[in-house]
């Protein structure tokens, strides 16, 4: 799937008026509304502690919203649906150390009641897609951080997840591995048509990967700006990142976030909420 195939009417995820208040009274998300189209790559970028993890956990049903709702293919999300898988930043903690790489990837498949052969095919295909076919028999703790995160991604691919929720998945790996993993997610989207929702505080990464970028306010998180990324596909690390459009978008997001973190600026001004800015 390429972004040209994305049908503007084919909305897979509808989030409306989403609010999450923790039991202690602290408000993490405030009235978030947005739609995500099938096959789209959408990124939420915002300052640290902006409730980005809470947002993803609430979308996929791991946390119950205080107000508002999430619709997946028009159905209300009340518990984690099989179509959405969250990929955590902390890969080492979300993989099971007592299982081999292959067993970790097939871990969620038991519920699907597949024949043993089908399971093997899914696992092999997913591990090949992330370039780890040769490491099926290893244990996660024998692999590097970047490879472990690939295992976590392969697990979601094998599960035939339609939407991947990526919670700063590349924050704890080195820069080269990071570029590799970024391109891997783009490839997986093209190959399997997976819809990607990424949260990150890395502005370059957000612009490089996305079709649309949502800039979040400091907590409680609101969408302060939605930016369509009009960069040609396929993205390519060196060429895309030196594209004038990339640089302009990057500057725009930087300035927005800089303004947001500045305590003097009134960020609560409702006029800029959900304002659409096109970078063309």
């Amino acid at each position, binding site marked *: 799937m390429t972004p040209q195939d994305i049908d503007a009417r084919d909305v897979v995820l509808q989030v409306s008026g989403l609010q999450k208040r923790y039991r202690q009274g602290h408000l993490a998300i405030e009235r978030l509304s947005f739609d995500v189209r099938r096959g789209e790559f959408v990124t939420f970028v915002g300052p640290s502690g902006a409730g980005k993890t809470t947002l993803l956990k609430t979308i996929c049903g*791991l946390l119950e919203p205080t107000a508002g709702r999430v619709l997946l293919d028009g159905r209300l999300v009340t518990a984690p649906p*099989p179509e959405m898988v969250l990929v955590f930043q902390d890969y080492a903690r979300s993989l*099971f150390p*007592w299982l081999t790489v292959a067993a970790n990837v097939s871990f*969620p498949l038991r*519920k699907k009641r597949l024949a043993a052969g089908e399971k093997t095919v899914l696992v092999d295909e997913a591990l090949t897609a992330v370039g780890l076919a040769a490491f099926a028999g290893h244990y996660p703790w024998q692999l590097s951080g970047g490879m472990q995160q690939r295992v976590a991604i392969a697990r979601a691919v094998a599960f035939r997840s339609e939407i991947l929720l990526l919670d700063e998945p590349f924050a704890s790996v080195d820069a080269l591995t990071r570029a590799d993993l970024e391109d891997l997610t783009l490839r997986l989207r093209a190959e399997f048509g997976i819809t990607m929702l990424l949260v990150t505080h890395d502005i370059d990464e957000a612009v490089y990967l996305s079709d649309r970028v949502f800039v979040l306010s400091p907590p409680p998180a609101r969408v302060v700006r939605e930016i369509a990324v009009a960069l040609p596909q396929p993205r390519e690390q060196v060429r895309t990142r030196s594209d004038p459009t990339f640089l302009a978008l990057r500057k725009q997001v930087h300035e927005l976030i800089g303004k947001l973190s500045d305590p003097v600026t009134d960020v609560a001004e409702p006029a800029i909420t959900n304002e659409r800015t096109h970078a063309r």
Partner: protein
Amino acid sequence: MKRRLAAWAPPAAFVVAVTLAVEALARSGLLTRHVPPPSAIFVALWRELANGSLSSQIGVTLATWAVAFVTAVALAIVVGLLMGTIPLMYDALSTLVDLLRPVPSVSLIPLAVLFFGLGPQMRLVMIVYASFWPMLINTLYGVRSVDPLALDTARNFGLSRLDTLARVVLPASLAGIATGVRVSASLALAVTVTVELVVGDSGIGHYIAQAEQSNRIAPMYAAIVLSGLIGWLINAAFSQLEARVVFWSPASRRSAEAL
């Protein structure tokens, strides 16, 4: 193999050196007659094992130990999993556990005699009671240390509560359970010898008490050394087992690299 030898050599050399030093001191008459030379202890150990009077007690002690230890482990794992996974159970029982755990088990021997008499039943109850606590605490620690992110992962993939317990909580708790098994195994042996010594009519503990009463000092030491050796072997065996069962734990990985 060479590295293994290098790891074993210093502690073995130290044990030999201390034994030789005690031997020299005992033979020079600097120690009281209550400390026989180690050579005399080893001769007595060999003789008492060979003529059956001590070796026949090993089986008695180990049989009691095994029955009580397995019972304590099974009970503690069930209670530990229940307390660790059901908050209501934890709230209800944790204070009771904290109150009972520090009571020295030996101080309960008179009470146990009142309830169960002097027979084997009383000994078993005492040993189960004593070794239950470290097993429970370690199981509980294991269950409660399961990473919330691992539980989120299980929920994310739609695992049922039972599946989560069997496929995530139990394996993740295995490190704590294995530590509990090792600690309880050694403790159960110590308590077995203790109750045999205080109220028993057989076993290594009883042998020690009898040897002391009939002033057979070297055989008494021999039996003490024997119980120490058995405890050491049990601990070594369960350490090995722990490293094999919980091969993924950071501690096991380190010791595997060291070999």
